[in-house]
């Protein structure tokens, strides 16, 4: 089980997680091009929730009972057995937002750049460490894998 967890006590609200998530999900994966050149900018799938001095990055926590998957009317939201993660197929998504109703963490966002579809953290399964975790300067986002709940650098 791959999961990113957040530590609000060390989050400084710098939003680098949002920036690097957007880069990772851009066409070019290049920070300059992603923000300056690409017509359709990618939507970051992590969002810094902020209230006064309190903040933390919120993204999919890969619930053991993924109610977003259970609720999805189209099959766009699915549990990928290979990676052990909840994934979302924007091609199948019809933008009914049932997943937003189902996610009790508030981690699913709307991507309304073109087709109106859900945008959800994919846990960067192709990377050893998700982009948000790798670029968090304060170790406020931590990757935990398997059932050992061990912290990974």
């Amino acid at each position: 089980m791959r999961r990113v967890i957040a530590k609000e006590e060390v989050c400084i609200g710098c939003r680098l997680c949002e920036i690097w998530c957007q880069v990772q999900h851009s066409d070019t994966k290049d920070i300059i091009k992603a923000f300056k050149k690409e017509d359709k900018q990618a939507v970051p799938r992590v969002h810094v929730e902020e209230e006064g001095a309190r903040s933390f990055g919120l993204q999919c926590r890969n619930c053991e009972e993924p109610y977003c998957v259970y609720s999805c009317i189209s099959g766009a939201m699915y549990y990928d057995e290979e990676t052990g993660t909840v994934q979302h197929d924007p091609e199948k998504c019809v933008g009914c937002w049932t997943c937003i109703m189902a996610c009790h963490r508030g981690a699913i966002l709307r991507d309304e750049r073109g087709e109106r579809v859900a945008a959800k953290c994919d846990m960067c399964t192709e990377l050893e460490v998700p982009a948000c975790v790798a670029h968090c300067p304060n170790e406020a986002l931590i990757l935990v894998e398997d059932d050992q709940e061990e912290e990974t650098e």
Partner: protein
Amino acid sequence: MRHYKYLIIGNSAGGIGAAEAIRKTDKEGSMAIISDEEHHVYGRPLISYYLGDEIDYDKIFYRPFDFYDKKKIDAILGKKAVKVDFDRSIVTLDDAEEIEYEKLLLATGGTPFVPPIKGLDKYEHFSFITLDDSLKIRERLSRKKIETAIVLGGGLIGLKAAEALTMRGINVKVVELADRVLSPVLDEQASAIIQDVVESEGVEVITGHTFNEVVGNGGMANGVIMDTGVKIDCGLVIIAIGVRPRIDLVKDSPVKLNRGIVVNKHMETNIPNVYACGDCAEVYDFLSDNFRLTPLWPTAYVGGNIAGHNMAGNAKEYVWGTGMNAVDFFGFPVISAGYINPPEGQEMEVLTKIEPENMTYKKFLIQDNRIMGMIFVNEVDRAGVILGLMRDKVDVSSFKDDLLRIDFGAVHLPIKLREEINTAAV
């Protein structure tokens, strides 16, 4: 005689939810799914998207085409279960085949309610709950140009049908007997906004009326006679008043029925080894702490999932569901759950925020510091956080003032809940 450890009647949300739960623990136990619908499992609410040409045909299917093979499920499709012998544990199909089961799930779904309106027996009309309904209407549209369609029923199904037909360039008139659209799931304010939205897209909404007769020629409808006596010309009639539990299979059986099949929190019926879920069953509602019909896709899936776990020997209770709807009309989103107005005789605090310029509206109902209902119009982000608070019966008194904020979310919750959201694997 074929024999299955798990036999599921119904190939939609509930049946698939059960099958997927069963396969989490029992990878090999023999399993079959029976359905009178011939199609590979499809997302039922997607029939309107397909009718409106918003998605291609192949996108309507809910799971990949190798789903049954991969899950080792025999899909017995296009055959109807016509009888269950609960003493012998045998289901009879419409081709007389008998199938023996060890555990049975009744996930037969709903059947459209068609009122006895004069002329319906003579002239073509359509229901709108199956893929076949969508296919038949598409076929009808391809055969003859239709100028105007009449949809009876301004609920979720009726308005989604109206949206789809509008997308196809048809003038749609929605006839709703209540004084507003979506009255079971939205309050007056939210209904008015949605009515504005669909009317601005060209749908004509006629509330407070019905039609008493369908008229036509040679089997084809060409109009309806309204209760006012006025005739409205149309080339297509869709009846979308509502859905009732499809329980004819167990009507004269020992299975206990109320409005639907009676189940407990384990989704068990009164008959050992027989379970039920979805639109055909009266399932637990955490808000009213009671059992009632909740004919919705997410509750059908989750109820089926819990049934499946119990069928496979994992005792689990279904306590997740209440009335909840997320829907989008012409790109305009709405989410509601629980009570939409305080039920008669009950005191509830009502928090509302309306911004007419953005067409946004939010409403929360609170009783004893517990959220009992929610409506989100046009601004639906993080609605699930509120539904989660409703479900967990969280005391909201310490952050009640924040609830209506546009960015209300996990960060505004007390520390214990924030920790749960940020770390736990629930």
